[in-house]
C-alpha cells in the first residue's frame, strides 16, 4: 500500500499541497463532487476537495449554523475558521444540498467576523436538481461562468486544448479507480475497504498526474499481492458523505470487509468518463457531471440509483448493506429508508445508522448493532 496516498488522504495540508504551494502554484477548494476538477487542472490550478476531516469540535460551526443541521458543513467551517484551509487561494461552494448552500452564507458571514477566513476568490457554483437537455444547457452555462471567473481572478486562460488534456488526465484516473473497484470486489480482495477509501480520497487532494502515477503503482502492487483477505463478511457502505477511514476500519474490524460503496467520497466520485470525442469539452463536462455524479439530490433518479446498488451488490457478492446518514441529512435519510425497504424485499440484509460527521465517538452502541448485523449475515450463511 502506498503510504504517500494514505498521507494525502489523512492530512489536509499534505506533502503534495505543500510542494505545489512552494512551487508557486495556486489551490482552489470545492465542496462537492459536482464541481468539475478539469476546469482548474486546465487553468494550472490544483483543485482540492474541502472536507471536515479532523475537526474535533464545532464551536465555530455551531455559531453560524445552529444545532439542527448536518455536521459536515459545520466541520468544514470549523476547520476554515481555525485556519486549516489557509493554503487555499479560492473556494467554490457547490450547493449539493441545502446544508451546503448555507455553507456559502455562513462562510461569508464568518469572514466578516474573522479576518482571512474567506479567500480572495469565493464562488457560488450552482447545480440543477434534474437531468434533462435544458438543465444540461443551464449547467453548461454555469461551468462557462466558472471558467470566466477563474480566468478573470487568477489571470489565466483556460483553452479548449488545456481542457482536453485535463479531461484525458481525469479519465485516466477514473479508469484506474475502476480497476481498483474491480479488485475490491474479487472473492479474495487484496485491499480492505478503509485503505481503498483512502486511495480514492487522495485523488481529491493532490495533483492528478502525480496521483495517476501513484495509483497505477498501487494497483500493480495489489496485483502482485499474494496474501489476500479471506472469509470475512462482505459489506457495502452507502449514504451520506463519508471520508472517515476510521469509521470504515471500525466497521470492518477483523470480521468484515467493505467490498463496495456508494459514497460521495467513494466510488460515486469517479463513475464514468467525460466524453472526449465531443467537439465542445465544456458541454462534455456538463453532460458527465450532471448525469453521473450519482446523488439523491437529483429528482426522479431513485430507481436508477437502486439499480446501481443492486448491480454493485451482485458483482461484489455483498452480504449486507450498511445505510448510513449524517444526522439531519434529509436526502440520504429519506433515500436510505427506501433502499432498506427495496433491498430487504430482494433478500439483502440492510442496517441503517444515523451518525454525526466528525470524531468517531459512541462506538459502543454502533458495535452492538454491527455485531448483531454480522450475526444476522452469519445466520443467512448457515441457511444458504
Amino acid at each position: 500500500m502506498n503510504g504517500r496516498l494514505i498521507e494525502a488522504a489523512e492530512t489536509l495540508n499534505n506533502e503534495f499541497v505543500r510542494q505545489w504551494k512552494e512551487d508557486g502554484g495556486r489551490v482552489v477548494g470545492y465542496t462537492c463532487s459536482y464541481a468539475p476538477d478539469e476546469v482548474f487542472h486546465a487553468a494550472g490550478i490544483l483543485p482540492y476537495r474541502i472536507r471536515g476531516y479532523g475537526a474535533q469540535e464545532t464551536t465555530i460551526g455551531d455559531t453560524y449554523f445552529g444545532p439542527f443541521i448536518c455536521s459536515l458543513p459545520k466541520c468544514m467551517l470549523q476547520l476554515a475558521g481555525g485556519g486549516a484551509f489557509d493554503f487555499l487561494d479560492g473556494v467554490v461552494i457547490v450547493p449539493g444540498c441545502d446544508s451546503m448552500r448555507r455553507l456559502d452564507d455562513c462562510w461569508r458571514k464568518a469572514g466578516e467576523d474573522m479576518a482571512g477566513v474567506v479567500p480572495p476568490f469565493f464562488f457560488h457554483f450552482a447545480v440543477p436538481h434534474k437531468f434533462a437537455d435544458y438543465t444540461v444547457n443551464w449547467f453548461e452555462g454555469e461551468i462557462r461562468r466558472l471558467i470566466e471567473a477563474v480566468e478573470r481572478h487568477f489571470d489565466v486562460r483556460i483553452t479548449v486544448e488545456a481542457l482536453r488534456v485535463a479531461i484525458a488526465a481525469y479519465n485516466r484516473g477514473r479508469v484506474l479507480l475502476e480497476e481498483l473497484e474491480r479488485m475490491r470486489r474479487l472473492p479474495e480482495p487484496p485491499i480492505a475497504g478503509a485503505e481503498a477509501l483512502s486511495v480514492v480520497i487522495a485523488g481529491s487532494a493532490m495533483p492528478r498526474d502525480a496521483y495517476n502515477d501513484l495509483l497505477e503503482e498501487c494497483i500493480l502492487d495489489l496485483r502482485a499481492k499474494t496474501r489476500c483477505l479471506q472469509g470475512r463478511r462482505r459489506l457495502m457502505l452507502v449514504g451520506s458523505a463519508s471520508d472517515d477511514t476510521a469509521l470504515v476500519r471500525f466497521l470492518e474490524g477483523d470480521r468484515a470487509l467493505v467490498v463496495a460503496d456508494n459514497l460521495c467520497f467513494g466510488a460515486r466520485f469517479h463513475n464514468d468518463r467525460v466524453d472526449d470525442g465531443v467537439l465542445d469539452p465544456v458541454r462534455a463536462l456538463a453532460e458527465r457531471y450532471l448525469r453521473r455524479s450519482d446523488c439523491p439530490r437529483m429528482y426522479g433518479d431513485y430507481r436508477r440509483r437502486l439499480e446501481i446498488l443492486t448491480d454493485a451488490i451482485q458483482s461484489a457478492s455483498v452480504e449486507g448493506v450498511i445505510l448510513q446518514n449524517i444526522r439531519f441529512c434529509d436526502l440520504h435519510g429519506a433515500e436510505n429508508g427506501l433502499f432498506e425497504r427495496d433491498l430487504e424485499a430482494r433478500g439483502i440484509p440492510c442496517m441503517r445508522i444515523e451518525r454525526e460527521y466528525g470524531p468517531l465517538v459512541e462506538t459502543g452502541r454502533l458495535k452492538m448493532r454491527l455485531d448483531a448485523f454480522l450475526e444476522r449475515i452469519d445466520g443467512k450463511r448457515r441457511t444458504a
Partner: protein
Amino acid sequence: MIVGGCDVGSLTSKAVVMKDGKVLGSMLIKSKARPGESAEEVMNGACAAAGVERREIMFCVGTGYGRDRIGFVNEAVSEIACHGRGARWMVPTARTIIDIGGQDCKAIRLDAEGTVTKFVTNDKCASGTGRFLEVMARLLGVGLDELGELSVRSKNPVTLANACTVWAQADVIQFLNDGVPLEDIAAGINNAMAGRMAVLVNNLGIENDVCMTGGVAKNRGVLAAIEKMLGLRLRAIRRHDPQLAGALGAALIAMDKTAGGVK
C-alpha cells in the same frame, strides 16, 4: 451440563446459570464502573443462588455493552441475539420483541425458528430508554419501580411536549410547580416513553405475538401505554424476570454451543 449467561449492561448487570434447560439461579446488580468487576460479582452471585461452583460452568456467553471485557466468558454475542433468544424461551410464540434497556431501546423481529431477521435501535439519545425513566422518577421523588403503579391511578395524564430527556425535565418541573398530581405526571412520562417506542416498533413492522423485555417491562404504566398506542395486547412474561432476558438468552446460546440446545 451447566452453562452460564452474563449480561453486563449500562445500568444493571445480570447473570443466569442453567442446567438442562432449567434456570438454577440468577442475579441482578447495579453495574459498576468496570464491566469486568460487574461481571465477576454478578456471576458469583448467580452461582451462589444456583448452588454451583464457578468451575462447574462448562460454557458461558457474555453479552451487553461490557461483553468484550468479561474475562471468563467463552464467547461474546450481541444483546440483540441474546434478547431474541431469551424472549423466545419465555414466550415461545413471540415474533416481535420490544426491549428497553438502560441506555437503549430495541425492537427485534424473529422468524418462526427464533432467528433474528431484523432489528432497529434508537440512536444516540436517552429518549425512550431506562435512563429517561430514571431521571424522571428522581424528579418526582419516587422509586423507579413506583412509576408504573403511580401512573395506572392517573385520571388525567399530562402531555410532555418533547420526548427529549433534557426538555422533558423542564416540562416535569413546570407540572410539579403547578401542583399537578404525581400520578398524572407519571402517566405522561410513561406515555412519552411508549410513544417513542411505538415509533421504533412501527418502523420495524409488527408481527404477532409481541412481548416486552428489559427492566422497563416491569413498569405496568409503560406496558399499558404501548398496548394502547400499538393497538395490541403484549404477551405477558411469567416464566422468568423479563429484565433477565439478555442473560437468559446468553445462557441458552451457551447451551446451543454445547449441543444441548433447548428451545
